[in-house]
Each structure stands twice: as structure tokens, then as C-alpha cells.
């Protein structure tokens, strides 16, 4: 009944289990991750993927030819957000990508921005 999302995420994620995730990030936890990256941070590649790269790094560079959110990268790679955040932090450190920070609301929004969203929705 439920419309199935494109990627059947949970089952695929369970495949490798925690061990695989641990290996992917070189065993790093939060220390390998930039604090300013969230689910809707947009990532854009600034360099091409190279064969000697870790496959996940190369995948991110390839799929971010155009801007893509962290949430989308996580969905396409079938990896948890926190793992993708570490991988993206690596690429950022090596200047291989650029990130476009999300707008963060603290309770009250900027009326201009809210108006823009409203106008966009009205065109749907």
C-alpha cells in the first residue's frame, strides 16, 4: 500500500551492517565530521573522480556534478547520514567539493525568504 521509495533503503543498509560503516569511515566517529553539514546542505563537486579514490568518495564526486543535498547523497549511496557526513568532510578538506550551507531558522523566519517559498509553492 505504501508508495515505495525509489531506493529500498533499510534492507540495503542492513547488508554490510555496522562493520561496513566502520570500515568506510576508517573507524572515525564525530571527529571526522564537520559540524556545519546537515541534511539539506548542498554539495557540488569541484573535481573529477579518480580511480584510486575510495569508491564512495568517487561516487559522491560523480553524483554531485550538479548540486545535491546530503539527504539525497545518503539515499543514493544507501548510507546513513552520519557516514556520508564524514565522507563529505574528507572531500571538503581536500577541496574536491564545495558545500552551500542551508538556511537555518531559529524560531522566526526571514519574511523575504518565507515569501519566496510561498510564491514557489503557489506555482505548483
Amino acid at each position, binding site marked *: 500500500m505504501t*508508495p515505495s*521509495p*525509489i*531506493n529500498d*533503503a*533499510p534492507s540495503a*543498509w542492513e547488508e554490510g551492517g*555496522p562493520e561496513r*560503516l*566502520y570500515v568506510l569511515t576508517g*573507524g*572515525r*566517529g*564525530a*571527529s571526522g565530521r564537520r559540524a556545519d553539514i*546537515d*541534511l*539539506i546542505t*548542498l554539495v*557540488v563537486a569541484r573535481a573529477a573522480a579518480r*580511480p584510486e579514490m*575510495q*569508491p*564512495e568518495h*568517487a*561516487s559522491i564526486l*560523480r553524483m*554531485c556534478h*550538479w*548540486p545535491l*543535498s546530503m*539527504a*539525497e547523497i*545518503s*539515499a*543514493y549511496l544507501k548510507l*546513513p*547520514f*552520519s*557516514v556520508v557526513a564524514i565522507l563529505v568532510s574528507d572531500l571538503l578538506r581536500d577541496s574536491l567539493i564545495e558545500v*552551500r550551507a*542551508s*538556511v*537555518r*531558522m*531559529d*524560531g*522566526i*523566519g526571514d*519574511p523575504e*525568504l*518565507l*515569501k519566496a*517559498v*510561498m*510564491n*514557489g*509553492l*503557489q506555482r*505548483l
Partner: protein
Amino acid sequence: MDSRGSELAVGPAREDALPASAATAVKIVVVGGFGVGKTTLVGSVSEIRPLTTEETMTEVSVGVDDVRGVEQKDATTVAMDFGRISINEQLVLYLFGTPGQQRFWFLWTGLFEGALGAVVLVDTRRLEASFDVIGRLENGGVPFIVAVNVFPDAPTHPMAEVRAALDLPAAVPIVACDARSRASSRDTLLALMRYLYRLSTQSAAPVAASAATE
């Protein structure tokens, strides 16, 4: 390594790519109990088929380098469906559908942080499932509206009755919606946006007050 390279050649179809000019993203969270229609609503308005992102409790909760996550194989996993609407050439809106159950709350800090606001989707047959969610949003100072997803087999209730049952503050809008309809789902999002706009142009907004008392 090796053969995984080609296997990992994944990503959006060309038509699902954002324009190169996309510079800013904002998000709205759709929250509600199991089966209340969150994914349906997101899918109705999204320009891409809903995708799923996932997070595990150990990843989120520890916040330190450790191997415990490796040993703890029964880590709770939470999946969130999301969709996307390009607002204009620069601005992108993301919609996240997240379960409202208590055991998922640990995730909320990351999810609601920075959101424009939230839509609490309710099913009148199971209103009690929304009490905790609403209290949580109020305490966190996250502005929200309530949308009653109207299922055909559910008894119809006047909105005033639902509002009273949920003990909603008078300022919080409550709307009826059909999550399967694009127009109805869009109107629900617009109701939230109009509310947020009102709050942003008022001086003493109730949201600021509740955030301050936290």
C-alpha cells in the same frame, strides 16, 4: 574495493538534478504517527519520487569516537522519507516525513533544527498519537500547523472539535487535507507558510515566547 567502483556509479537521473544555480536549501518537516499519510503527502508535491535517508541511534547518540557502534548490532535505525520542490533557480525546499513515535525523538534535534516549520499530520481515529508530538514541538519552539488527513472510513469531526481534543493554542492553524491530492497537499504547505509569514512579521510571536521559556 575494485569491482565496487562501477556498482557505486549511482546518483540522480539527469532530470532529477538541481540547476547549477541552486544555492540555498530550506526544509519543512511532516510528522505524524504510523500510516497517517506522511510519505503520501511528500510524494504528492515532490518533484522527485520520495527517497529515503537513514540514521542509526548509535551514530547519533554517542557523539564520540568509539567502537561501541560496531559491537552494538541492534542499533535502532530510523528511516525518513523526503521529497524536494525547486522554489526558484536558487532556492530549494526539502520535505521530510518523520515518525512521531517517542522512540524516534532522539533524532529530532538534528531534524527540526533549522526547519522553517512543521506539519503535524493527524488521523482523527488516532488523535492520541499526536499529543506527544505537539507537546514536543511546542517545547522546542518549532512553529507548526495541524493537518487532518481525511480518510474516507473515518468519522468526520468539525475542525473545532479536533482542535479542542488536541488542546491546540488558538493561534495554531488546523486544516483538512487529502494527502493523495497534489493541490490539497500544496495548500497544506501554503497554510503553514502563511502562518510562518504571519509569525515573522509579528513583533511578539508566540513561538519566540515558547522557545524562551524552554
